[in-house]
C-alpha cells in the first residue's frame, strides 16, 4: 500500500507520507532532523537511546519518534519545552560517563554526540564531583578498536552484527551503568563487512585502525565516488586530505548498497595515492622512451594510426571508465581497423552481506566489466593477447601487467609503468588519471550506470583517459563507432 498517504504536521509543516512511515523519517520530509542515536534506517528499531522524544498531540506522554508510526491528523512538535527538556536531560546523562576527549578523538567533527549537545545540550554538567567510568580500549578485530569510555550504548553495532551481518559476535555485557559492548570471547570482529560498525557508531567508540589519528574530520574533502573493489558498484565517498585519499566510506544508495560497504572496498584505496606515476607523455625516439608534450605525443599516435591498417587490438582494464572504453573502441573501429577488444578480471571470493538482498563483495573484482562487455569488449583475453602479436596496432588501456608482445605499434595509456613492464616496448605512452582523479561512469553487474567524481588532481601532465582518447578521436576525425 505504498501509495496510501497519511497527512500529518511536524513542527507546523503539513506533510503527506506513506502509511507506516516512522515519525522520525516523516519529520525529515518536513525539514526536521529529530536528534537520535540508536535509530538508523538500515537497522531494526531499538528505541533505547530515548533521544528522539517528541511531543505528539493527544498522547499522554512524550513519544520516541523512531518507534512511532504516523497516523492521519497527527500533530508532532519537536520543539516544545517538554520535549526539549527531555532531550537535554538525555544528553546530560549520556555525557556523565563520556570523556570529553574530543581533541584526540577521531570522531570529533562528525560526532552526533557533539552535534546534538551543541544544538540542544546544557552548557555545563551537574555531574561534577564524580570520576567517570573507565574501561580499557579493546581490540575487536582487524580494523576495529573499541573505546568503551566513549560508548553511549546505542547498540547500532550489536544490531548490525546480529541482524545485518547475521554473525552475532557483539552484545551488551553487564547491566546498569556498568554496561559495555562485549565481544564473544572466542570470536573476532573479522566479518568481511564488519567495518560498517565504525561508520554506524554515532560517537568515537568504534574506530578504524586504518584511519586512526590520520586526519581531523573537518580537514577532509568529500567526493562522491563508486567503489572499484568489485562489480557490485557500491556508492562511496572518498575522503581526501591535502589531495591524498585517506578514507573510504559508504554513501547510501538503497538500490545498490543501502548504507554499507565491505571491508575489501573500504581498504581498496591506497593505490589511488601511488607516487610512482607516469607524469608525462613518453614517445620512442632513437629506440628510447623520451618525455614530451601532449601535442607531440598526439601527433605521433595520429601518424601511427593513419599509417596502419588491418588488425587492431585493445587490451583494456575493466576498471576504466565507460567513456574511456567507448572512445578507445571508437578510435580503433571507427579508424577503419579490424577491431578486437578484451579485458581480464581478477577473481576473488564472494562475500555476501546476509541481511541485505543482492549485496555482496562480488567474486569479480572490477567495477566496469559489465560496461566493457556492453561496449563489445570480450572476456577472451588470452585470444586477444595472441591476436595482438600480429596486429598492426595494439592499444593497452591502463593494464600495466598486460603480457603483450606485438610486431605492430604498441600504444599504452596508463597510470604506472613498472621497470619490467611489457608496455615499456610501446611506441607511445600516455599518462592518464586514476579513478580518484577523473570523472566518469561505471556500469555495475546489474547494468546500473553510476557516476563518480574527481576527488584530487592528476599528477604531472596526466589527463583522464577519456580526454586523451577524445582528443585523438577528434584529431583523426574518426566516425562513430560501429
Amino acid at each position, binding site marked *: 500500500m505504498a501509495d496510501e498517504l497519511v497527512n500529518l504536521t511536524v513542527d507546523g509543516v503539513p506533510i503527506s507520507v506513506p502509511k507506516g512511515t516512522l515519525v522520525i523519517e516523516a519529520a525529515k520530509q518536513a525539514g526536521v532532523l529529530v536528534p537520535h542515536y540508536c535509530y538508523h534506517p538500515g537497522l531494526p*528499531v*531499538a*528505541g*533505547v*537511546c*530515548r*533521544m528522539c*522524544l517528541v511531543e505528539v498531540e493527544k498522547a499522554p*506522554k*512524550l513519544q*520516541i519518534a523512531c*518507534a512511532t508510526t504516523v497516523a492521519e491528523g497527527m500533530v508532532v512538535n519537536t520543539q516544545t519545552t517538554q520535549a526539549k*527538556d*527531555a532531550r537535554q*536531560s*538525555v544528553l546530560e*546523562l*549520556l555525557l*556523565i*560517563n563520556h570523556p570529553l576527549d574530543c581533541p584526540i578523538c577521531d570522531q570529533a567533527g562528525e560526532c552526533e554526540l557533539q552535534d546534538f549537545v551543541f544544538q540542544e545540550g546544557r552548557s555545563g554538567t*551537574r*555531574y561534577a*564531583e*564524580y570520576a567517570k567510568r573507565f574501561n580499557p580500549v579493546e581490540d575487536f578485530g582487524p580494523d576495529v578498536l573499541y573505546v568503551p569510555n566513549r560508548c*553511549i*550504548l546505542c*547498540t547500532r553495532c550489536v544490531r548490525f552484527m546480529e541482524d545485518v551481518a547475521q554473525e552475532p559476535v557483539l*552484545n*551488551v555485557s*553487564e*547491566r*546498569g*551503568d*556498568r*554496561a559495555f559492548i562485549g565481544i564473544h570471547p572466542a570470536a573476532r570482529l573479522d566479518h568481511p563487512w564488519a567495518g560498517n560498525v565504525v561508520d554506524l557508531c554515532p560517537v568515537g567508540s568504534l574506530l578504524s585502525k586504518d584511519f586512526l589519528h590520520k586526519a581531523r574530520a573537518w580537514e577532509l574533502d568529500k567526493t562522491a565516488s563508486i567503489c572499484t573493489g568489485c562489480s557490485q558498484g557500491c556508492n562511496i565517498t572518498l575522503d581526501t586530505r591535502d589531495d591524498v585519499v585517506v578514507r573510504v566510506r559508504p554513501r547510501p544508495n538503497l538500490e545498490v548498497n543501502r548504507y554499507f560497504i565491505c571491508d575489501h572496498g573500504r581498504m581498496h584505496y591506497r593505490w589511488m595515492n601511488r607516487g610512482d606515476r607516469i607524469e608525462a607523455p613518453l614517445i620512442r625516439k632513437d629506440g628510447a622512451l623520451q618525455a614530451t608534450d601532449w601535442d607531440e605525443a598526439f601527433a605521433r599516435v595520429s601518424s601511427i594510426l593513419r599509417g596502419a591498417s588491418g588488425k587492431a587490438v585493445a587490451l583494456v582494464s575493466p576498471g576504466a571508465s565507460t567513456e574511456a572504453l567507448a572512445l578507445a573502441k571508437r578510435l580503433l573501429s571507427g579508424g577503419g581497423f579490424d577491431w578486437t577488444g578484451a579485458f581480464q578480471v581478477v577473481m576473488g571470493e564472494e562475500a555476501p552481506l546476509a541481511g541485505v538482498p543482492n549485496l555482496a563483495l562480488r567474486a569479480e573484482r572490477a567495477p566496469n566489466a559489465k560496461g566493457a562487455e556492453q561496449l563489445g569488449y570480450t572476456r577472451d583475453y588470452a585470444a586477444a593477447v595472441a591476436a595482438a602479436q600480429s596486429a598492426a596496432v595494439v592499444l593497452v588501456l591502463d593494464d600495466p601487467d598486460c603480457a603483450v608482445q606485438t610486431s605492430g605499434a604498441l600504444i599504452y595509456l596508463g597510470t604506472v609503468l613498472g621497470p619490467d613492464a611489457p608496455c615499456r616496448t610501446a611506441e607511445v605512452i600516455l599518462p592518464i588519471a586514476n579513478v580518484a582523479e577523473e570523472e566518469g561512469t561505471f556500469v555495475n553487474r546489474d547494468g546500473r550506470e553510476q557516476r563518480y567524481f574527481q576527488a584530487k588532481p592528476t599528477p604531472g601532465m596526466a589527463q583522464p583517459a577519456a580526454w586523451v582518447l577524445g582528443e585523438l578521436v577528434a584529431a583523426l576525425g574518426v566516425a562513430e563507432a560501429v
Partner: protein
Amino acid sequence: MGYPHKPHPKETVVLSQHFGDADARTYKGWVKRGGYDALAQALKTEPAAVTEVVKESGLRGRGGAGFPTGLKWSFMPKEKKKPHYLCVNADESEPGTFKDREIMRWTPHALLEGTAIAAHAIRAEVAYIYIRGEFTEPWTIMEKALAEADAAGVFGKIKVYLHRGAGAYICGEETAMMNSIEGKRGNPRIKPPFPAAAGLFGMPTTINNVETLAAVPQILKRGAAWYKGLSLSNPKSTGTKLFSVCGHVQRPGNYEVTMGFPLKDLLYDMCGGVPAGRTLKACIPGGSSVPILNREETEACLLDYEGVVATGSMLGSGGVIVFDDSTDMVYQIMRLARFYAHESCAQCTQCREGTAWTTKILERILAGQGKTKDLDLLLDLSENMTGKTICVLSDSCAAPVVSGIKKFKSEFEDYIAGKRQPVLVA
C-alpha cells in the same frame, strides 16, 4: 519449614487457606480439598465463556499494574491463526514482596490449575511458568507438583514448562521475561506490538501473575458474583489480596485481606504494630517501586487499587515495607536507588545513567558531602526518569526518591547541613 502464623480473624482466607498444610502440596491432597474441580468445569465450558466469568468477577492483575485479567485474556486474537502462549510470571523479585513464593511453596496445584484454566481460556497450547532463579524451594515444589499433575493428565493437550530465571529483577517485566524465555538477554521490548499481538516467539501471548492465576479456580468454583462481593471500598477492586508485610512490625508475614481493607488495621491489629516503644514513621504499601507514604497517609490508606492511589501511592504487588521512627529514610532511599541502579538493564539512557547518578548523589548526601542544590537535582533527575523509558524500572527508582524528598525533606537537609553524623556507605 512451616507457616509462621495461623490466620488472623480479620483475614479473608481464600488463597492462603491451605498455607502451612503440607498435604495440600500433593496432587492427591489437592484433589481431596476440591482441587482441579474448577479445571474440569472450565474444560467443559467455551473459552470465551471462561473469560467472561473472570471478566465479570472483576479480578485484576496482582503483579503490580492491576490490569483487569478477563479483559487481558479477551485481547487474544479471536481467530486462531498462530500458536498462543501463556506466560506465568513467578519472577517475584520486587523488594518487600513474597506472596507468590508462598503460593508456590504451599499450593503449587492452585497455580497449576489456574494456569491450565487460563491456557484453556486463551486457547494456548503451551504455558511457561517463569520462576525466579533464587526461589530454590518453590522451584523444587513446583517441579514435583508439575510432574504429579502431568502424570495425572490434568493438562490434556496443554504443555506446561517451568523456566528458571537467572537472577535479574528486570525479567519480572513481561516483555523482558519473554526475551529471557526465548534465550535472549532479558531486555524489555518496546510496545507496541503488545504481547497479545506479538509476544513470546512473536506469537500472541498473555502474561499473568501467580496470585492472579491462583485466584482463578476459586472464581470459577464459587462464581463471579461471590468474588465481586469481596470488596470493602471501591467496587472496581474485588476479591482478596495477599499482602507481604515486612520491616518494623511485630509479626511480619503474608496476610490475606479483602480489597479495601484499611492498611492501619493490617499493620496494627494483624501485624501487631511496630516494636514496643517505637512509632510508625513511614510505609511503602506496594513493593519498593511505589511512592513512600508517611504515617498519616499510611493510617488513612485503604488497601485497594483506588484507595492507595488516593493516598498518593500505588497498590503495586502488595509488598508492605514498614519503617518505624528509628529509620534513616535517606539511607533507605539510597538503598532502594542502589537496587535499581544494580538491576537496570542498561537499554534506556535515563535509566542506565540516571539510576546510578541518583545513587551517587544519595551516597554523597549520606556521607555528609551533600549540597542544598542536590535535592533539586534529584527531583529534576527523577522527573526525567519518569515516563520516558521503555519500561517502568526508572520510574520505580524515581518514585521513592521523589516521595522521600517530599515527605522527609528535613532528614536530607540535616545531612546536608551537617546536623547528622555522616554514614559511611560501603
